[in-house]
């Protein structure tokens, strides 16, 4: 029963080193970037974190949830509402929202299992649930309804009160992304990861080999939901104003799915890579065109998406791997063929 899953292979070690190098290099950015550019970098990190979170169940597990806006809404709105109405500490709110999201995610996974939903139906049922969630949020006064919530914060309360400087917010987001990368790496090499990939490839076959698909899906979904909620809390606390049309609508989820697919579904670096390319390009274009041509930066963003997909239909991670294989002819590989 408890055959040990392969734990610390050379591949995981390489990936851990990559993550460490990434963390150190990116940690120095706030000393170079200021103001507006730093805020772009922070937003990019937060969106990369959201993409990483979706990747767990959508990319690795192949469960195409469009209902992640529920978890985003929970993570963004609940801590804000708790803070405004009850003066609750944002960190406590973050934890409560993450726990609730995990439970909700597991319930959605259970529904999908109980009714044996085909993949496309699952995607669209979660989309419908997301729409119901948006309608609810827009009509519940406690959650700010259509006006949204403005996060109240004691200035000078420091880390304990979630009161971060611009640089602090950036490093917090970076810490989140690094933690997210480590979690995804762990998932990829854990029993859960192998089960999720089996479910991704063929649900019934996985079941036939003795995998508890309900537990696998529920665990993957709960983890993904909790991570999503945490990043949403960080994003909302960073933005100060929680707009329900941004945080409770499927718009952010669509971007998460886009970043994962363009980067490479189920890969470690793909979602981060795609976010790191698309978001800054869009934002910098917005800065340059902002006054004269509103919306044009999104056109550039869209064109970029179309071009990447046309030239790398299996995502950036796959495309880059192929590119590297073509550039670097492996000398050892050719020798061993003899």
């Amino acid at each position, binding site marked *: 029963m408890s055959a040990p899953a392969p734990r610390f292979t050379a591949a995981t070690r390489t990936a851990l080193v990559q993550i460490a190098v990434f963390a150190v290099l990116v940690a120095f950015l706030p000393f170079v970037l200021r103001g507006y550019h730093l805020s772009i970098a922070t937003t990019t990190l937060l969106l990369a974190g959201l993409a990483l979170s979706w990747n767990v169940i959508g990319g690795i597990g192949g469960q195409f949830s469009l209902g992640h806006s529920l978890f985003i809404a929970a993570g963004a709105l609940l801590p804000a509402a708790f803070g405004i109405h009850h003066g609750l500490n944002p960190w406590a709110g973050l934890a409560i929202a993450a726990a609730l999201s995990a439970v909700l995610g597991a319930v959605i996974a259970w529904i999908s299992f109980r009714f044996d939903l085909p993949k496309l139906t699952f995607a669209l049922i979660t989309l419908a649930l997301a729409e119901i969630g948006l309608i609810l949020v827009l009509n519940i006064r406690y959650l700010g309804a259509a006006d949204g919530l403005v996060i109240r914060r004691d200035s000078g309360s420091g880390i304990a009160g979630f009161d971060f400087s611009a640089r602090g917010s950036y490093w917090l987001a970076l810490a989140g992304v690094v933690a997210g990368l480590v979690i995804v790496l762990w998932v990829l090499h854990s029993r859960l990861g192998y089960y999720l990939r089996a479910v991704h490839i063929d649900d019934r076959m996985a079941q036939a080999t003795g995998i508890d698909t309900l537990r696998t899906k529920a665990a993957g979904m709960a983890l993904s939901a909790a991570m999503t909620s945490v990043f949403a809390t960080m994003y909302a606390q960073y933005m100060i104003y929680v707009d329900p049309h941004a945080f409770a609508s499927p718009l952010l989820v669509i971007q998460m799915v886009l970043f994962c697919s363009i980067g490479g579904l189920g890969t470690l670096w793909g979602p981060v890579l795609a976010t790191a390319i698309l978001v800054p390009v869009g934002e910098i274009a917005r800065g340059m065109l902002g006054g004269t041509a509103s919306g044009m930066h999104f*056109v550039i963003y869209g064109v970029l998406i179309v071009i990447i997909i046309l030239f790398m239909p299996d995502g950036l991670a796959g495309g880059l791997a192929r590119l590297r294989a073509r550039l670097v002819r492996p000398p050892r590989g050719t020798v061993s063929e003899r």
Partner: protein
Amino acid sequence: MALLFETLVQGLLIGSGYALIAIGMAVVYNVSGILNFAHGDFITLGMYACLALLLGFGVGPYIGLFLVTPAFAILGILFYLGLIRPLQDTNMLMVVQITLGLTFIIQNLILYAFGSIEQVVQTPISAVLLHLTDRFALRLTGVIAGGVSLGLILGLYVLIQRSDFGRAIRAIHQNPRGAAVCGIDVARVRAATFALAFAVMGVASCILAPTQPFVPGGGLMISVTAILVLILGGLGSFHGTLLGGLVVGLSQTVGTVYLGGTLGLALPYIIFVLVLLFRPGGLVGGRSLA
């Protein structure tokens, strides 16, 4: 009783419009297996084309229809040749993503050209009301939209069920390789089908433009509604799409009138979730959805 009648009539009119929008998407899906998320943005684009014709040349939407429709047919062929065909053999999912990328492009080009204000296409008959009872009247533009929708859906049904072109479309839907073996030029039929689907979308946008205000970013909501209608009815089923459209339209008006508030707005989605839980293949059609 009178209220119920009014609610139902309104629901059917709105629903037939939804069905028409979803049919365009269904035709594209049937021949290429792609759920086009930019569908709604193309419809919005058509509505703005009507607006531009009206403001620029004084051409109303019911005449503009004869310009927008052929333009859309050409657009459909370009869409197929430029974006869909090169990706035909790759991951389906990426094709869906490319339509999402297209969403950004179309929405924001419209935003750039027309600004973000809500627009309406005024016609000479915009103020005309049809009195069904003393207290209940329908807008003529709405009745025209509903009638044309039903007529067009019926026409498409006959075309796809009875003509050789329709048989070719269905053959490709079932098995592209088999269809090719039987001598069907798959790429050509696909291109023609995209032209057909986009022409239908062109007509839909022209007849719907006078019935409701629109904004540049409204396309995504139209796409989502169309997808819900399509899935609710049962992918690939013609009757299903019509039925799905009517169910969504009716549940919207009934929900707003009789339930009101939050529950009323959420009713179409609640019905959608419940139906799919127990019939994952949609109202018409089995559990074949993979």
